[in-house]
């Protein structure tokens, strides 16, 4: 018997009698017979819990990458997730609920969303945040669409130093909306090199830090853009110690929230955060929780400004998004609450310190150097003659870095990217350096 189906043969017989049909097949009489005749089963039997557990476990174990020591970044980072996060996420009252359409029985979800929005505003230096997007890439793409709606401009300026995966998603959405993409080069330091602004620009994207790991200088950028939006895609851990884009007049700040308490998860689910200014609220995509009061004047929370959303505004909505990444946003909320300002700063500084310690050591190895002089946070490009061989040598020592091909779209063919989080111990840093120093046998 299927363990998830409570109906016994007696139940089914009696329920069919109430409906007034002889058997279950009669309930499908409205599906054209030729359609039913064409149906083909998969040839798949049912499996007991032990068998399903066995199969999925064997698939999980067939991968080997998770056993390597990761110095992997490129948009998804291996930070430590404190135990409290997983335990709160395991509360089924949170994870078996859906979108809080009925606020009186959803105060748990609506309250943590309000907390989350507050925290994202604090991190980014912005005035209002939504309750999440699918991931940092689609959040960025939606920010571009919002800039287009607000300004009427049809060209989006994308730095060559933007994460190529983000860039590809933005390009897909932009093509869909009939927008044009123009590339902005980077200078010898790895920093954005903005020349002219085309008159029909809707937005300039800047990534902080960029895909080369370099921290951008956002000062004065907004003033050069005219009506076009300044959209920043920021790493949320870096924002603990790096001046947030909101302080430089950014119109929208988005980013990949995965580093905040979520696993790398083979790239999904992720967490897109999205923050903007109050003046743009009615153009913002996504759910928003707002504070109000009940009949007795008691404080409570509701989903608000829903007239922006697809279920009300249909083709006039600010986005089609419905299901978002709520549970990942709850993880981020609990993570930030658990760490507090001091803990988050500690995680950022540990990542920064260890990344710089490793970079300094690598630069002393003959044949290796840092590719760029620009300041970095926790990710940097190592230059060497044969990056494929270097990466393979590291792998043989049980260390994973991104394939050098990750940097090819950025125009770097003589290097590889290294990311360091607080999880990488001093011993692991030593292992990394020894592996590169070791002469090939």
């Amino acid at each position, binding site marked *: 018997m299927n363990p998830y189906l409570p109906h016994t043969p007696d139940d089914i017989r009696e329920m069919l009698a109430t409906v007034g049909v002889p058997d279950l097949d009669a309930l499908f009489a409205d599906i054209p017979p030729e359609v039913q005749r064409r149906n083909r089963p998969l040839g798949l039997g049912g499996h007991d819990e032990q068998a399903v557990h066995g199969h999925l476990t064997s698939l999980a174990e067939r991968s080997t990458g998770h056993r390597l020591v990761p110095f992997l970044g490129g948009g998804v980072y291996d930070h430590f997730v404190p135990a409290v996060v997983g335990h709160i996420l395991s509360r089924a009252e949170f994870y078996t609920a859906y979108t809080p359409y009925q606020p009186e029985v959803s105060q748990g979800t609506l309250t943590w969303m309000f907390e989350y929005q507050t925290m994202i505003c604090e991190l980014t230096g912005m005035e209002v945040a939504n309750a999440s997007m699918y991931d940092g890439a689609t959040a960025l793409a939606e920010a571009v669409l919002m800039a287009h709606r607000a300004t009427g401009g049809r060209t989006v300026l994308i730095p060559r130093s933007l994460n190529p995966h983000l860039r590809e998603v933005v390009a897909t959405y932009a093509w869909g909306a009939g927008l044009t993409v123009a590339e902005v080069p980077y200078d010898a330091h790895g920093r954005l090199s903005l020349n002219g602004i085309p008159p029909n620009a809707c937005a300039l994207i800047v990534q902080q830090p960029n895909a080369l790991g370099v921290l951008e200088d956002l000062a004065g950028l907004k003033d050069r853009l005219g009506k076009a939006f300044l959209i920043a895609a920021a790493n949320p851990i870096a924002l603990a110690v790096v001046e947030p884009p909101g302080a430089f007049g950014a119109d929208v700040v988005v980013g990949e929230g995965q580093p905040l308490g979520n696993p790398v998860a083979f790239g999904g689910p992720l967490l897109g955060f999205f923050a903007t200014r109050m003046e743009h609220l009615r153009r913002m995509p996504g759910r928003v929780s707002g504070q109000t009061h009940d009949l007795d004047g008691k404080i409570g929370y509701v989903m608000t400004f829903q007239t922006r959303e697809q*279920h*009300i505004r249909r083709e006039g909505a600010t986005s*089609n998004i419905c299901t978002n990444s709520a549970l990942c946003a709850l993880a981020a909320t609990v993570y930030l609450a658990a760490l507090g300002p001091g803990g988050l700063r500690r995680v950022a500084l540990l990542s920064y310190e260890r990344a710089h310690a490793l970079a300094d050591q690598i630069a002393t190895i003959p044949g290796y150097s840092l590719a760029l002089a620009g300041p970095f946070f926790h990710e940097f490009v190592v230059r060497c003659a044969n990056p494929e061989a270097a990466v393979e040598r590291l792998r043989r020592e049980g260390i994973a870095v991104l394939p050098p091909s990750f940097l090819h779209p950025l125009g770097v063919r003589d290097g590889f990217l290294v990311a360091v989080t607080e999880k990488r111990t001093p011993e692991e840093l030593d292992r990394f350096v020894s592996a590169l120093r070791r002469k090939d046998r």
Partner: protein
Amino acid sequence: MTTIYDQGRPGRRAVSLPEPSHPEAEILDSIPTDLRRRTPPRLPEVSQPELIRHYTALSRMNYGVDTGFYPLGSCTMKHNPRLHEDLARLPGFAGLHPLLPAEECQGALALLWEMGEYLKGITGMPGITLQPAAGAHGELTGMLLFKKWLEDRGELGARTKILLPDSAHGTNPASAAMVGFSVVSIPSDRRGMVDLNALKQALGPDVAGIMLTVPNTLGIFEEDILTITQLVHNAGGLCYFDGANLNAYLGRARPGDMGADVFHINLHKTFSTPHGGGGPGAGPVTVSEALVPYLPVPGIARGEEAYHLDWNKPKTIGRVHPYFGNVLVIVRALAYLLTLGDAGMREVSGGAVLAANYLKAKLKGTYKLPYDRLVKHEFVLSGEGLGHGLRTLDVAKRLMDYGFHPPTVYFPLIVKEALMIEPTETEPRETLDAFASALVAIAAEARERPELLREAPHTAPVRRLDEANAVREPKLRLDL
């Protein structure tokens, strides 16, 4: 409601962390001044016991499938098996970085490939992408595929309209608009199905295609589905099927056999993955032969010895997801599919449709039933005529006092005062009976004690909330 910011005191922290090698101030000073953060973000400062108590308290103000019956129409709030939660946390899935070379990720790629093959079989369609992160994301992917197909045929400028039955989910028109299509609404007929005459009149050389929900949001299967898809195809258009309601015919019929060109599957609905308070979900898309060349890259392919990423799609629409889609959702969905097998899938749709028709039979004498037909997995009542100026919203709020989550209300738009009820197959008959009794009792209360409804809920953590005030005086974050 107190927030986490109301807890704790400065200096508290809920987790201990490693020590850096240098004093923090020294490390901070090494960050160039013009980049260094001037004011730290204001975050809560709480100890671990305070943190746990706060979020446990919040969880207790929430209603989930584990709390009780959650008949939210079009959302398929079925039981979430616990095995799946353990499997999704296996390090070989949760701890695997998406940018590792394919040879290091063979298990995860095998998972994705296997799921893709099963979903192609279930939908009877030859191509798939697992990238879309939710149903609406699948719709957007579908509309991008429409656009690319038109562009490839040189028809992009000519075919600009998407036809949409007036019962469609709001995501459908919003998705079409994101790709620059204009939307033409097709009325429903007296049966609650697409009005064929209206469809014929709307079809023409300017139509890119149609978006259909099957069964539709009234829970009614489009009996003319083959005629509809043939008409659209003959007029040179494509057929998008919104798969939010796949639970209604899982294992019994396939959209590919009905003429679908694009179909999205809400894994968080039909395949029982938890809804997470609003997400994450997953919205894989299957396509007909004509659209296979345009699918997002990379695809997942099986070679003779290993799985690899397939970039060989010169006509692709590009990426819609930065990596491979919501993999941990797919882990859960595959576990569910393997548990069910073919027979189990038929039991799921059989049980879901039986439960919906059973509840409809028990309630149609009490509430107005605008479309009294055989339904699939859900049905729509109307709260019209309750008397005393009472509305569907009042019924919904009163249901909370009886311990139930309300159904979807005020949707679909073509039914006034709609109550859209989707019981799913995982509810015991006793629960269905209790829910029906509650709705019958509420109808009696509406006649005799209308204030009970008007002031409901009486037992929820808060009383009815002032939604207009939330817009009038927007407070979207805490003042700190």
